[in-house]
């Protein structure tokens, strides 16, 4: 090797392999951006629609239920679903992308901050996203049980719905707080390891 020039020549002698062509790439990025926007909008509207149905059903139940516990539970569920609709409409696009035109240290720091924010958010999901509707459902179920007990219609099969929704809520909690947080922590650690060496800054 004769030094940098030969390294440079060696580097630049890499075959370009398949080039996409600017026009194709332009179509690709435009298409992907549009698809992403559409997918986010569709997802948000589906979730909003589902939450709207929940608001309608439990709002009606809150007005009509005879048992006070069932009424309170229905009201809490309807209020929780309304909050979810508001949250999706306001923050439905997820976290803002980190500006990639910064230098490496600034970018790495911004990514770490975003990871920390996402981890904090996911760890708090149980309080602001899961607990209110779950408590509402529990209250509503207790109200139904009490009502049925009054008429002697309560049976063991009534325990199936609460078991199912408890399992669903537990699964959502696990996905957020165990699986997703664990993955984000791994990525954060990998990022820190990759960008650890950064002495000699100009500032």
């Amino acid at each position, binding site marked *: 090797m004769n030094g940098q020039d030969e*390294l440079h020549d060696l580097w630049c002698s890499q*075959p370009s392999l398949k080039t*996409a062509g600017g026009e194709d790439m332009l179509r690709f990025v435009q298409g992907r951006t549009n698809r992403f926007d559409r997918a986010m909008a569709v997802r948000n509207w589906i979730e909003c629609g589902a939450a709207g149905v929940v608001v309608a059903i439990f709002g009606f139940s809150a007005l009509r239920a005879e048992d006070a516990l069932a009424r309170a539970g229905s009201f809490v569920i309807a209020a929780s679903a309304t909050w979810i609709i508001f949250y999706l409409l306001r923050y439905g696009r997820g976290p803002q992308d980190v500006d*990639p035109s910064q230098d*490496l240290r600034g970018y790495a720091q911004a990514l770490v901050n975003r990871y920390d924010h996402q981890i904090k958010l996911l760890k708090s999901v149980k309080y602001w996203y899961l607990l209110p509707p779950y408590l509402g459902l529990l209250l509503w179920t207790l109200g139904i049980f009490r009502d049925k007990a009054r008429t002697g219609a309560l049976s063991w099969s009534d325990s199936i719905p609460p078991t199912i929704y408890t399992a669903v809520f537990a699964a959502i909690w696990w996905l957020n707080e165990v699986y997703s947080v664990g993955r984000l922590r791994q990525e954060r650690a990998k990022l820190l390891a*990759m960008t650890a060496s950064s002495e*000699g*800054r*100009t500032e």
Partner: protein
Amino acid sequence: MRLPIWKRKPMIAEAMAETALVSEESDRNDVFLRLMQQFEPALRRLSAAYFDREADRADLFQEIALALWQAIPKFRGQSTERTWLYRIAHNVAISSSVKSHRRARREEFLSEEFEHPSALAGAEERLLLGEKRRALVDSVRRLAAVDRQIILLHLEGLTYAEIEEATGLSETAIATRLSRIRAKLKEEVRKREVGTS
């Protein structure tokens, strides 16, 4: 304070009008096409320095292209176009590496059918050149992110001042690191050369 939604769009339009690169959507497309034409080979080489699998490299190249397209309206000419582009490309590559849970798999780096047309006629010389290139790329891939960024910018022909602008490191630090990295890369390539011949 968060602005109401009806006030946001005019502000974005005003911000776009101040940019050095584009003021309208058609300008944005033109700039993107020009950047792709000018830098696609360099960006593909950069992708190869982060992933060994062809599919992963193609994914990374697409992610870089997407990030560039999204960043064009925000470019304000605070750095040269070239350093701005390389900053984005490297940062996207780092993000992509961090998120990548792809299985590390050894793959032939270069297919002989795409071999660069060169003056080398002999198969033995071509093989040797291919091995040296593979050694260089493998060694670059094993470097820490900062070192990888510095050497890639250097190999793509950026000056120390441009590398300083792209990385935020001082020129002295860049020179010191480059000297160390170059020596290491040369040694790795030489070892492969000796092993092959």
